[in-house]
């Protein structure tokens, strides 16, 4: 269209310096009366973790409810309701594992399941949001640290939530069960328990970062159907790996699922009497996959942030 008229006067009218647009002591103070910033990697990293802590505390009830409901209901139905109504016959797994109660099987399994779920939830969901729509990730990317440090911070924050999620399972399984159905826990190697929990939570948080980085936000519902559900159902949560010997092909196939090594790793340190995968294989996979997924996850993250 050619009906435009001159616009160069539009700004001139308001070009005279305004009396005061900035209140208080104004622009001078903002620039001159400011504390000198001294960012260091450690300070920035700590501040970012503190931010996660603040948000977690603010959403405490929601986060806690999300974390507690799944194991609570699961334990209630399978170690209280089912034994009461005489459904114990379906738990061949317990029998296969030397007559252990189902709660004994479930404790390490549910802890591993929580490690996995919470790790993915804590990292993947927020990350997908941060990358989409307003691309709020750009805000954090402007903090004075390398982008890969930001990725590591996200892994660590997710791992903490994953770790805490797994701990919540312990009192639930110990307390909620029908008479005579209590789990038999026998921890002899506390440091090893810590190692399994820490590597397990780091693994899931790294996986969460990789998924959150590569995931198309429009396919979010796929995350549950294609990853979370198969990983937990086929992750030796509800049965020990050894019990799968009667379905040999499945016993071998599930070995590609990293969840299996978390469940079995926790079985090895919490309920060794039920039998478990070889410890060296568990540690090799937990540490190896964490390193591998962590490496590629942070790399993909940096690439995506810096398009």
């Amino acid at each position, binding site marked *: *269209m*050619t*009906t*435009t*008229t*001159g*616009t*160069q006067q*539009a*700004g*001139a009218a*308001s*070009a005279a*310096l*305004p009396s*005061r*647009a*900035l*209140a*208080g*002591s*104004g*622009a*001078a*103070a*903002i*620039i001159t*009366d*400011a*504390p*000198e*910033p*001294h*960012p*260091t990697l450690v*300070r*920035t990293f700590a*501040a*970012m973790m*503190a*931010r996660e802590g*603040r*948000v977690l505390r*603010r*959403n405490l009830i929601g986060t806690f409810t999300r974390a507690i409901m799944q194991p609570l209901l699961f334990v209630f139905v399978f170690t209280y309701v089912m034994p009461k109504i005489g459904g114990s016959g379906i738990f061949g797994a317990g029998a296969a594992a030397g007559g252990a109660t189902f709660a004994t099987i479930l404790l390490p399994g549910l802890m591993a399941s929580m490690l996995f779920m919470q790790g993915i939830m804590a990292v993947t969901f927020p990350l997908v949001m941060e990358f989409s*729509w*307003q*691309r*709020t990730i*750009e*805000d954090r*990317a*402007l*903090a*004075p*640290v*390398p982008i890969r440090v930001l990725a590591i911070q996200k892994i660590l924050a997710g791992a903490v939530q994953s770790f805490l999620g797994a701990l919540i399972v312990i009192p639930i399984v110990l307390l909620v069960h029908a008479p005579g159905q209590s789990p038999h826990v026998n921890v002899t190697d506390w440091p090893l328990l810590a190692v399994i929990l820490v590597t397990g939570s780091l693994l899931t948080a790294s996986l969460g970062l990789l998924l959150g980085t590569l995931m198309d936000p429009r396919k979010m519902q796929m995350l549950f159907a294609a990853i979370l559900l198969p990983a937990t159902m086929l992750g030796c949560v509800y049965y020990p790996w050894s019990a799968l010997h009667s379905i040999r092909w499945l016993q071998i196939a599930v070995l590609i699922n990293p969840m299996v090594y978390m469940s079995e790793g926790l079985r090895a340190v919490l309920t060794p009497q039920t039998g478990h995968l070889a410890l060296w294989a568990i540690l090799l996979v937990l540490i190896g996959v964490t390193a591998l997924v962590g490496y590629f996850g942070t790399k993909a993250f940096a690439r995506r*942030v*810096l*398009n």
Partner: protein
Amino acid sequence: MTEPAVQPPAPPPAIRTEDLRKTYKTSRGDVPAVRGIDLAVGTGEFFGLLGPNGAGKSTTIGMLTTLVVPTGGRAWVAGIDVVADPVGVKRRIGVVTQNNTLDMQLTVAENLEFRSRFFGLGLRDAARRAEQLLVAFGLADRRKAIATDLSGGQAKRLLIARALVHKPDVLFLDEPTAGLDPQTRVNLWDMLRELHAEGQTILLTTHYMEEAEALCDRVAVVDHGEVLAAGTIDELKEGAGADTVITVRYESPVPDGLAVRTGLPGRPGISKVETEGDQVRVFAREPEGVLGELVTAGAAAGLTVRDAAQLRPSLETVFLSLTGREYRE
């Protein structure tokens, strides 16, 4: 004989780029977004990158703020190479991107406090700095609101306040007033002028001509990833765009030779006459009478005038004479 006094080294320009380029690789092949931009912005300047949407402004600002990795050329901010030391650059810049990137999980005050802590301030300093900025930007009564509850203008003020927590050497603003109502926009302009008056170096991108004219000391006009012209507003108007542009559109297509019959081409004070479809456009240093002659000549050829416009020298006429296209916002 005395040794000549050693001159202190001149401070590096706040921003410098050399042949800066960015080509995006897509499934449809390479898409060049920025094709060799050279800029120099001095400390304390209020510099504008002006261009229509898709001109490459945001990509340029992305490269200067380390969020986009250049595919060619070099750039320095506060004397620091953006590719070699992005963390060093990030310490010295404040950035307001186009999107609302506030932390929606935090309150208004927390957005400022945590950003201050990201930049190494202790708890007490961070709280003090946040309070100072809340007051200055008129957000003190919203300090406990969650960031999602802010209006567009408030969110933009908070974004600017947040970009200033660590006293950045350079403040980058990408389309800061896009989508704001006129009153909020003018209010924001006033804030930016005050910051600039206190010595804050600012680089702003905009697709509003009047915004560049109202705020900037110097402007680079950008289109298709290249700088078409750069200088003060007055320099630009005195250069290629010193002409007044007179456009007359008729009810029917302009017959061949009409432009010649007006006697305008070649006359002193007339730089250029263009005929295209149903319109004639004249670039004139001496525009007096041109409009009348176009109407008369049209009437003599049996053409009725549909509309007519006369643009005095402005960034818009600069753009028009540089690109041959009207500026589209």
